[in-house]
């Protein structure tokens, strides 16, 4: 499904156990990111992960234009390895963070690939303790693609479209 199709998709009504499982995944992913539990967060990631924070809407080819983050699985592994060195100064100490995840909608189900495409809104509050200890607010929308690996849900895509994505951004060295 293209970004445009997803943007206009009617949410799918899915059986209640599946809906609860998807919600639980999103909340866990948010909590592990909030608490900078990098290794546990990485366990939620599938081998074909694409982690993308575009500049503006996710309607362009990230191979041709710059993005804030455009990680394939190896690049994401480097990102987490760097955070776990203990001397990633931009996140030393890690920012206290909490994000509210809401408006969760299952937008597409691909029975052949076994994937669920899920949209949600979020507001992340971050205290930038590494420098001026100012509170920074990061609102946006996430599109997850989830897939079952060995019975458990994993994410193979996380696209984060920030409300402020066309404006300059402060340090974003945490997991957004």
């Amino acid at each position, binding site marked *: 499904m293209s970004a445009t199709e997803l943007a206009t998709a009617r949410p799918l009504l899915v059986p209640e156990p599946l809906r609860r499982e998807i919600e639980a995944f999103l909340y866990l992913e948010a909590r592990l990111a909030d608490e900078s539990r990098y290794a546990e967060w990485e366990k939620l990631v599938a081998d074909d992960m694409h982690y993308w924070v575009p500049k503006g809407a996710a309607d362009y080819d990230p191979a041709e234009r710059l993005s804030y983050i455009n990680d394939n699985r190896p690049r994401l592994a480097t990102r987490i390895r760097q955070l776990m060195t203990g001397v990633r100064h931009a996140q030393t100490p890690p920012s206290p963070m909490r994000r509210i995840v809401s408006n969760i909608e299952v937008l597409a189900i691909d029975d052949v690939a076994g994937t669920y495409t899920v949209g949600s809104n979020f507001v992340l509050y971050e205290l930038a303790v590494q420098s001026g200890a100012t509170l920074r607010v990061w609102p946006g929308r996430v599109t997850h693609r989830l897939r079952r690996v060995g019975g458990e849900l994993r994410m193979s895509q996380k696209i984060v479209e920030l409300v402020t994505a066309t404006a300059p951004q402060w340090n*974003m060295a945490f997991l957004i």
Partner: protein
Amino acid sequence: MSTPYAALILEDRVHGSLYTDTQVFADEMDRIFRRGWVFVGHDSEIPKSGDWVTRQVGRESVIMVRDRGGAIHVLANRCAHRGNRLCWRERGNGNSFQCIYHGWTFGLDGSLRAVSHKAGFDRDRAEMPLDRAGQVGLHRGFVFANMSGDAGTLADHLGAGGRDLIDRLCDLSPTGNIRLSAGWIGHRVESNWKMWPESDSDGYHLDFVHASMLRAQPDNYYHDTVIGGESANVSRAVDHGRGHTELDLRPSYSRELAWLGVGRDRVGAYCDALEARHGKARAERLLWDGPPHGFIFPNLFLGEVNIARIDPLDVGSMVHAHTVIQLEDVDDALNRRLLRQSEAALGPASFIVPDDAIIAERMQLGFQGLRPPASGSSASGGWIDLSRGRAREQRQPDGTRVGHVSDETTNRAFWHHYRHVMESRA
């Protein structure tokens, strides 16, 4: 009272109040960013007639636009009637600029074309164009401007050293032309703008500030070029004069294409194309040397494959905006590789510059509350030491000054020129 710059900027130290004093910032916006040459953009960003991008020159919003004849104009982004901002998007294309307040319409060259309800307007339209940069100049597609029009020639501003930095970058393209087509990423930093000409050309900090990147990316070429101990490292810090500086990494590369992180087998067609343009010997030199790491005073960073500009916002806030070079007539795969390399290095979520941003912000915090010393006395505190390597740097026959890559030769070069500008344009 005017600021005594000569008392605050000595050859081996500068005072911290220069980063926090709002009067100093106001002086800089006038003397450096309005009356001096600044980098605005690149002509490849506006390839077609009517293409425009918005930028800032100092604190003033401008439109860089290409007219029907192909000429590039840098116009104030401000209606000549009542001052409404004309363009609020980052880029666009059109035949004219129309103000949405009262409908005045301006040509691509800034001339006033039409006034609505013209019976009540008794001025001559020719007297009412958009304000514009007093001088616009290009070097290899890099567009520079100044608002005042009395900044001397661009060739004098760049000097041989500045021109050579840009030439060495552009010569890496098989056509001699680079394209800035990948968009700009803005990185907001709560620091004074001067932290960046200093930090972007500081070769002393890498193994401390960027320790996490070096550990996470053991194959990064910075290991060879700026790390490895004071005696082992043969990279150089260069003062090109006029405030332009370089960390010359070329002596440290241990193989050709190290800066690209691949071997000739992966980019054979590119190497052949360079050889066809430059001949074998010069192409081999270029492929070994790679793009420069330099800073053009006051706001242009040539960071190997990256281009960044410094946009000051106020005395304690600025944007480090960057894009990546794209080469002409090469495989898409090579340009995509450059783009991925850039995403790893620069920007708010990259592996390198966020750590520099933290240092800049903490320095800004460190300078809070400082007041300029009455007599330039070092006893009053708040001084920043820039003495490293003074005894061992060498003046070369071409006028450049060269030190060890870890020496503060580049920082002294910036401040030396800064003081000259701030005093001579007082």
